[in-house]
């Protein structure tokens, strides 16, 4: 009765597409979620940007897969995930950023990403109203896009359920049983279950399960704030990432876009990280981001601001997720440490691990797949150019 082929812990950005792809391969899947529904953790804090515009092969390839899945989902399954094509644009004002971004283009193109440098006039065309003073041009990747983080997990869940996956909500995993380094059962506050493979996909809480499993899970959450406006007429097709540090000394970059409802959804990366899981909004967020947005596109001053929120980036030391079998525990798969990209990486990553688990081979290149391994050196000096 309580025996499954696969148990997924956490029905978030990671857990729901994973449930879909595993159940699609015929596995009997159970999803355990402590909250009342899918996608109610940090998943819904994400603004829903999906880009294959990264600097490392693993992320590029995985996100190209994600984009295929998101952009064809409605056609395939009849459920609208709020997909809005329109690409990503990184407008550039500084010489050194231009160098970095141009330097990445060969790798990005090599791994199949459609991306190019565009001149200042083209940037001004696709980002109407952008401040053109000192604007040098930018990168534009027209096949990136955005998806509603509110809708996507529901779409994945419902499709998984059609394939027999079981979702248990309001049920928290509190303990594990191991025998000879084999994970034999998962214990919740209600029941005990067992499965051939257990996939840990519990987001910001991943590290807490390290001691329960007797291993180190190097995930430290820090929090990021975001906000959304009332809807306005569609005028902005791409998502915008401004890589400059803010003049206020508090931000390293910021990004925003217009969703399918017409709302502008925005977020910044703080210079000094807020480590922890405190999700209360802070009063400094709006003034800081308002300054940045208005100086980039002055007409945005007329937006009406509807809501703000704060959520977690479950960070690994090197900013790259862990998507791998746990080396020392048989039957445990780690899908944690999604950092700021958990939403866009899965479904591609979900499809990949379904293939890893069932067919024992990745769908992305071996080399790209190695990128996400648990046994890598998390503290190697190498830094990703584009986070």
């Amino acid at each position: 009765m309580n025996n499954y082929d696969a148990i997924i812990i956490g029905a978030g950005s990671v857990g729901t597409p994973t449930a879909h792809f595993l159940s699609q391969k015929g596995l009997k899947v159970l999803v355990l979620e402590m909250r009342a529904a899918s996608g109610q953790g940090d998943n819904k804090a994400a603004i829903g940007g999906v880009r294959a515009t990264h600097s490392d092969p693993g992320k590029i390839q995985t996100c190209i897969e994600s984009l295929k899945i998101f952009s064809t989902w409605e056609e395939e399954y009849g459920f609208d995930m709020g997909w809005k094509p329109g690409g990503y644009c990184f407008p550039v004002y500084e010489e050194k950023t231009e160098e970095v971004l141009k330097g990445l283009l060969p790798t990005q193109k090599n791994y199949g990403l459609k991306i190019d440098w565009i001149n200042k006039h083209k940037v001004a065309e696709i980002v109407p109203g952008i401040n053109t003073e000192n604007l040098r041009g930018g990168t534009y990747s027209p096949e990136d896009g955005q998806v509603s983080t509110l809708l996507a997990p529901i779409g994945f869940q419902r499709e998984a359920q059609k394939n027999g996956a079981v979702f248990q909500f309001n049920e928290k995993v509190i303990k594990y049983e191991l025998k000879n380094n084999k994970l034999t059962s998962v214990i919740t506050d209600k029941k005990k279950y067992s499965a051939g493979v257990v996939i840990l996909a519990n987001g910001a809480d991943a590290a807490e399960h390290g001691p329960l499993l007797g291993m180190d899970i190097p995930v430290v959450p820090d929090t990021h704030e975001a906000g959304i406006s009332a809807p306005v007429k569609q005028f902005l097709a791409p998502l915008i990432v401004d890589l400059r540090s803010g003049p206020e000394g508090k931000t390293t970059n910021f990004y925003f876009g217009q969703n399918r409802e017409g709302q502008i959804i925005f977020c910044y990366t703080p210079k000094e990280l807020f480590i922890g899981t405190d999700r209360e909004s802070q009063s400094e967020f709006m003034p800081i981001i308002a300054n940045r947005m208005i100086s980039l596109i002055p007409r945005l001053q007329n937006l009406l601001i509807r809501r703000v929120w704060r959520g977690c980036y479950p960070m690994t030391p090197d900013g790259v997720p862990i998507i791998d079998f746990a080396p020392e525990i048989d039957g445990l798969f780690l899908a944690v440490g999604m950092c700021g990209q958990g939403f866009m990486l899965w479904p591609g990553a979900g499809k990949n691990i379904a293939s890893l688990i069932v067919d024992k081979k990745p769908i992305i290149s071996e080399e790209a797949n190695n990128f996400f391994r648990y046994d890598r050196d998390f503290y190697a000096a190498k830094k990703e150019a584009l986070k």
Partner: protein
Amino acid sequence: MVYPVIRCVQEIPCDPCVGSCPKNLITMKDSILSLPEYTEGCLGCSSCVMLCPGLAITLVFNNYDPNKEKALVMMPFEFVNETVPLGCEVTTTDLEGNVVGKGKVVAVKTKESVDKRRLLLVEVPEKDKLLVAGFHIRDIYHGEPLTEDMQDEEDPIICRCERVRKSEIVREIRMGVRDMNQLKAVARPSMGGCGGKTCTDIILKIFKEEGVPMEEITLPTNRPLVAEIHLGDFVKKK
């Protein structure tokens, strides 16, 4: 020649106009309930316009235009300073709010001891001078009547902000949605400006109609009452 036009039509206990006039030109016959009456001799000091709490008095300046084509009407104005349409053409109205014609705001007068009220001098055609009692501060927008399908009694709109119908909510409940946060995510009730101030209770009733016991329902995030403000308002004005 200057004189006040007193449009005081209700017999209410009010008489600041009487005391305001340095020449005692405004009087009341019997009591504070009587309507004010004006006797000739106005100085044009504008005290009565400044003090009438009912904004019922305008002053008409007749000698404004030697050609007698225009006259000047002084009107009280109590909106914020930024909205004073100084130098602008405005649509003038009579006491009932009917459009009279056009006027131009040529000057603004303030008085330090009177906190918010300003007196606007509006140039109007001579023939309008006795009629003009106010003006529009922006173009009138009458809105649009609800279309017929929006008044559908069978399938009413539950969330007005996002225009979510009952049938959409029922559909999701039948699909198994029990968390009202997820209901918001998938069908959008409560996602508008008000944050679910009205529809939350109605949705709970729909759950009940659908036979879902209260224990199975997770309530939505409770939000304070907020007003949406402009992004520009977060930025310090230079």
